[in-house]
């Protein structure tokens, strides 16, 4: 681990948004590849942020700061990675199920998954399930992540399973659900491939899906 990389991780963990781009540039100047910066640096930093969130040391504001610092760095190196023909470690379609607009949880999960080095297609909130499935198909995403805080929208998650099964996509596209109204039992009942209690767990579930 070089000094530049350590410094970048420090900047992201401490949420110093304004220094994010510079610290990333310094890593590039020191000879690190975009791969290394994303997967060994930014990812590691978000993992630490996730740990702090789990340890109730960081709360939403700090996570948002770190996430935004992450995006600063990512904006610089991600185009280099994909532009050179490199691939991120996986593609995820994420959104809040139709009928619900509570999206903060979804946004934290998005930050954590981005931190893993994944390409995220954020569909936003109140998203029809059909649209999420279509997007996954067209972009070649292998994970659909659905979130909801409210109980009436749980039906949408069930519908997603049905659509994937009908189109023979179960297994090719993995589903993971989360949010206040969900539970492990519910995930098992509807046949979802994964469930997570919070954003940190979510990144572990996604990692497991992709074999990271």
């Amino acid at each position, binding site marked *: *681990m070089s000094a530049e990389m*350590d410094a970048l991780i*420090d900047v992201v*963990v401490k949420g110093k948004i304004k220094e994010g781009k510079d610290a990333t540039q310094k890593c590039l100047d020191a000879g690190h590849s975009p791969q290394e910066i994303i997967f060994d640096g930014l990812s*590691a930093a978000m993992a630490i942020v996730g*740990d702090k969130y789990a*340890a*109730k040391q960081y709360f939403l504001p700090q996570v948002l700061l770190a996430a935004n610092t992450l995006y600063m760095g990512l904006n610089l190196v991600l185009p280099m990675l994909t532009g050179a023909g490199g691939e991120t470690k996986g593609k995820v379609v994420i959104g809040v199920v139709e009928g619900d607009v509570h999206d903060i949880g979804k946004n934290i999960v998005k930050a954590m998954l981005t931190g893993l080095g994944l390409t995220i297609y954020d569909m936003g909130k109140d998203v029809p399930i059909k649209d999420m499935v279509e997007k996954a198909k067209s972009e070649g995403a292998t994970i659909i992540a659905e979130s909801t805080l409210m109980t009436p929208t749980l039906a949408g998650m069930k519908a997603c399973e049905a659509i994937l099964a009908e189109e023979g996509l179960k297994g090719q596209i993995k589903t993971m659900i989360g949010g206040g109204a969900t539970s492990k039992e519910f995930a098992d009942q509807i046949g979802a491939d994964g469930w997570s209690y919070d954003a940190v767990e979510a990144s572990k579930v996604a990692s497991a899906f992709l074999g990271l």
Partner: protein
Amino acid sequence: MRYSDYDQWVQDWIAREKEAGRKCFDVKKSGNNYYVYFQSTRYNPETKKRDKVSGYLGKLVEGEGLIEPDTYSEEDEQISPARYGLGIDTGGSFTDAVIIDLDDMNVVAKRKSPTTHQDLSIGLYNSVDAVFASTDIRPEDISLVGISTTLATNSILEGSGGEVGLILIGWNPMKEVNFGEKRQAIVKGGYDNKGRALAAMSKDEVVNAIMGMKDDVDAIAISGLFASMNTSQENKVKELAIKLTGLPVVAGHELSAVLGIDKRAETAVLNAKLIPVVSKFFDDVEETFRKKGIKAPIMAYKGDGSVMTLEQARLYPVETILSGPAASSMGGKVLSGVENCVIVDIGGTSTDIAIMEEGYPQIQFEGASVGRWRTRVKAVDMYTVALGGDSRIVLKEGEVIIGPDRVVPLATFSQRYPQVVDRIMLTDVYDYYEAVEGYDLQILTEREQRVYDSIVGKGPLNTMEVKDSVEGLWVIDDEMASLVKKGAVMLASLTPTDVMVYKGEFKMGNPSGARAGIHSIAEKMGMTERQAAVFLSDEIKEKVAEAIMSKMLDDQMLEWRDKGSELLLRRMLTLHHDCAMNMRASFSVPIIGIGAPSKFMMDDLTKRLGAEVLFPENYDVGNAVGAICSKITESLSGTVIPTPDYKFLCTVPFMGSSYHAHLEGAISAARRSLESYLESKLKSYGARNIVTSSKVKTYMASEGGIGDYTDEGLAGNVNLVEIISRAIGDPPEGN
């Protein structure tokens, strides 16, 4: 266990008496009758020793209890000199000392003391002092001492020990060889496979070799080509080396008779390396024990379940490797009284499983390996799993992972640092690190040093607090793991011991620390604390069952593991019957549990494995009992093969070959040679009551199998006969 075949009503009576505090008695069964004898010890001022006093108390009648005789006379009292043995075992976590009545193998006193890894003798003396303090038996009353230590095993693993000089006779290796020796010399000589000299040794060459290495080494090892057929060259070199250097010298043939000069050399070098360390240890022990007033002979425990004198231990320390596991197997057998069984010894760090056949542990055919070293020492074939009472419990993605790391239990840690309990309850993080003060930083890398410096003196810190303390560095997981491994930082975490403490099955430390750890698991799994404790217990017990089954399967075929077989195994062991089809194994021998955590970690084993599970009394000090209750044994094999000219060639190691006209004659000759050799060897150790026996295994040409040869007419079809002889004797006693 002595009473296990008594009628239930008798066992109940005994249990009630013991519960009421009346323990000084013994119940003997004669036919269908039960007689009770009173037993106690008395100091005899004349002999200055303890006497055992026993007297007849009465007869046990069902439904009425003890019926005392009408009269009691002094003649009914029998006095005999008491014979006590002191057994000591240094384990990974604890050093146990027990005092045993050698007549009935009763444990009279037992004590534990933490093992002091940096100097094993400290913990050893502590436990010995403690055990004497707990009883009025005095050191002078001890007639025999047995010690089993991990010293040899640890030294090999750590690579410590003295410097060795190796002399190879008559070997021309294809490439450079080194078995860890500092100096090496190859001299002319060697034998062929019939024990005839290939070349004469040159005395000058040998003297030069010895003088050349004498100042650089602490001990000398010798290994000659086919020396197992003819030992004279090795013996001559040994004599000369001792005369010229005064250093300890051991020849390869003294340690093993297997073929392979390189294998014997490897064992010899390892042995020589250990000599300084082990000798010093036993010298120290002997001196200290004598000072304490223990005059009894001291026996060192060997890895095959037998013992040897200290003189031998100083010369052949490599045979003490794996003595711990061997002692626990023998201990389990002695305490349970069962000769054929599976012994499961659960300690703080690991679970060791061995199979006992006819009173002795199965020996590893290839020779024991320790770390990356493959010795040719015959030692117990032990299956070890890093799963013990203090193994670290980690929850990873909903899966419970136990071990292999060994950590400080939360109950112990939170007794010293009660403030961590609230923090754990709040954060659900239960890994706590504490830097060990005054650690020698030389062997740490630069990053490790930074981490160490940032946290030393700051008290207990959880994982995130450690990271917060190190300025500018966040990704330090590797460094933290390395610091713990190097002993610079101590790690406390959730362990099976904590689960036991939480459930009230074990008293230790601060129970709220244990509870805090359970609480974290409960939160992460979405369970109540009680559910989490049950869940963890279940996982722990299933893993123990899995380890036992793995050992049994490994013995059949090493490469059995794959996804399918693992699924079958789990289905066989689970207690969750949510499937219409259930599988259960069954065992034809009992499983004996020893070691303090075993009762907890094996308590539902019967349900899982279909085996009878026994926890003999004093199961928590099984190793120390084993260390004292063993015999001196030696075994050796010879062979008989047919020759092209219709005769039979009998070959016995160290004693050469002879030709015989008849197969019977050849086999008898082998037997006689082997048994007399072994008997005199044992006599030289001071063993008493020596018994020799031999087993004959015949390999037939036509059937291709093994059988007991009886018919002379089949002599023409015999390929090979193996004669395995054994001599068993009681250790010398006296004080």
